[in-house]
């Protein structure tokens, strides 16, 4: 999908209505995409300004994340997001303030009280299961949540995301197989941005698509355009429906572009061509979705600007709050090794 073709199509049809999404829904989706992007860019700036020591970016993957999260129900479902899934945790209830508190590693950070790097999400209140840095470990946890829910008769979906590189870890394989055997309500969501840090697809995987792997676990796998939030929403909705109907897990792969280096510690110029990156930027999903919303009359230039201004104000306030918020006390580091 590129911006133009999407816009043109939209003149004749509101694709989102066919998916059961109202105009309000897609405006919300867009707002979340803009908020995700805004927070991401702000954190990157703060890192460059030396104010936060580390950032991992989701820039370019917002459409996939918001499309996926909108197919879930934050009151019913559980998410086990990977470090880039900022958009998902926002939809699940984390706020700009929460995100900034985490970036500044402040005591009020809801994920970890400033113990973990940003991007290590967790919040029981919001059904976001605590995550770590070693990749793919969350995938079996999602299966365990689905198993536990099934045992207790709770009707829910466990969503877990990971990069295509992380689909090479044994834990992905073992977890997917376990979920397949037990027909568990899990959605495995792969954000394929074609790189694992510097390692390009051809050195990561020998199969055409990560979704080819689903057949080895007895459940369906699909690959969708991750720059199109509606396409992702649709594929996810099908997966969620299957899960809720007791038909078992699904693997949804969203093809995306990583518009930033891997993290604030990375420099991608040694391994990625300028042309490739520029081409990716032309596919920026925020622009194409905006164009779609404008083209089908859901947003106007003014309402879109107002939305952006609101989001920016939110981010500014969050940044200001988090910057002045206190760090945790040093000795508190001794707490919560075990239950107290």
């Amino acid at each position, binding site marked *: 999908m590129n911006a133009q073709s999407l816009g043109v199509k939209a003149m004749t049809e509101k694709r989102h209505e066919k998916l059961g999404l109202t105009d309000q829904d897609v405006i919300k989706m867009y707002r979340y995409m803009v908020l995700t992007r805004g927070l991401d860019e702000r954190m990157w700036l703060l890192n460059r300004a030396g104010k936060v020591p580390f950032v991992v970016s989701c820039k370019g993957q917002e459409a996939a994340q918001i499309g996926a999260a909108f197919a879930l129900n934050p009151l019913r479902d*559980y998410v*086990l997001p990977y470090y880039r899934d900022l958009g998902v945790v926002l939809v699940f209830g984390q706020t700009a303030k929460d995100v900034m508190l985490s970036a500044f590693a402040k005591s009020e*950070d*809801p*994920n*970890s*009280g400033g*113990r*973990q790097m940003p991007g*290590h999400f*967790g*919040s*029981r209140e919001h059904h976001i*299961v*605590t995550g*770590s840095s*070693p990749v793919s*470990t969350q*995938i*079996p*946890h*999602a*299966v*365990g*949540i*689905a*198993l*536990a*829910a*099934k*045992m*207790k008769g709770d009707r829910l979906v*466990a969503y877990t995301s990971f990069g295509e590189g992380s689909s090479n870890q*044994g*834990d992905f394989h*073992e*977890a997917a*197989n*376990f979920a397949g*055997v*037990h027909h568990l309500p899990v959605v495995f969501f792969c954000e394929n941005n074609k790189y694992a840090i510097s390692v390009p697809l051809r050195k990561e995987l020998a199969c055409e698509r990560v979704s080819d792997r689903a057949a080895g676990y007895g459940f369906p796998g699909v690959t969708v355009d991750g720059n199109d939030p509606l396409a992702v929403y649709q594929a996810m909705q099908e997966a969620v429906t299957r899960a809720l109907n007791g038909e078992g897990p699904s693997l949804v792969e969203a093809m995306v572009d990583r518009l930033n280096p891997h993290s604030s510690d990375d420099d991608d110029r040694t391994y990625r061509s300028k042309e490739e990156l520029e081409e990716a930027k032309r596919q920026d999903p925020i622009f194409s979705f905006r164009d779609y919303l404008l083209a089908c009359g859901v947003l106007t230039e003014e309402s879109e600007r107002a939305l952006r201004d609101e989001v920016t104000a939110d981010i500014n306030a969050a940044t200001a709050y988090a910057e002045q918020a206190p760090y945790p006390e040093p000795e508190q580091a001794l*707490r*919560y*090794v*075990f*239950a*107290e």
Partner: protein
Amino acid sequence: MTVKLYIDSIHDALQEEMRRDQGVFVVGEDVGVRGGVFRVTQGLIEEFGEMRVIDAPLAESAIVGVAIGAAAYGLKPVAEIQFADFILPAVNQIISEAAKMRYRSNNDWSCPLVVRAPYGGGVHGALYHSQSVEALFHHVPGLKVVMPATAADAKGLLLSAIRDPDPVLFFEHKALYRWVKDDVPDGDYTVPIGKARLVREGEDLTVITYGLMVHYAEEAARELEKEGVSIELLDLRTVSPLDREAILAAAKKTGKVLIVHEDNKTGGVGAEVSAIIAEEALFDLDAPIARLCGPDIPAMPFNPPQERFYMVNSEKIAQAMRKLAAF
């Protein structure tokens, strides 16, 4: 009180706790119709069904990882690793995940998980069905490591482990399963995690050990008694957290300490026990702190002469006791 086999008391703990608490379930390889390769879970699938007694695919990282997810959701999984040697594929899930969930979430999430595994040698298990693995985990903050020596402790500690709000590794010595039996209290009772057990009191030297070696040390102590040497014998029961008070008290009492374990010597649990004593009771000692442990070879060979060579046994312990007593 009923005299029960070690294995039966573990079975009973599982069965009774599954009856008491709907949230408890068992997952592992062959735990279902086969009842486990050692028969610890025999009959559970018949009573509790396939949903609570799960024959998992052959993948330890998933067995533990899935159990972690279920624990985070609020259930009480008891994962079985078929042999302790095969816990290694699950080490990342245990150390990076189970041990750190509470800490990394600042107390928001937790992981009330039990991982059971039969360990230890002397049963013709060869290199990969004989190992002791506690030293890999006793160093890891966030984990508790329990290693009962008696049937009574096995049941009481397993009930404590299942009810513990944090992850507990529960290692059962294979050679104890059908060899040791003792008085087990009837019904529900717990033995606290982190408390050692004074097996016998003595004046001349202190032996600190755990697991199968408790029994061999007892045999040796009875032998030494005949020779006029009286032995204070401490069964650690929990190797993490260690019962520092009991260790220090026992060490100070006689001033001579022999630490015994089946696991390889270097970097074993005995090193930490020794270091605690050397740090906090040095001037109460009348002799160097001795360790009698498995040799530093990868594991126990299959052929009988070399398996015997590896194993610490009551004669070797008696020999070490004599040496220390004579010091």
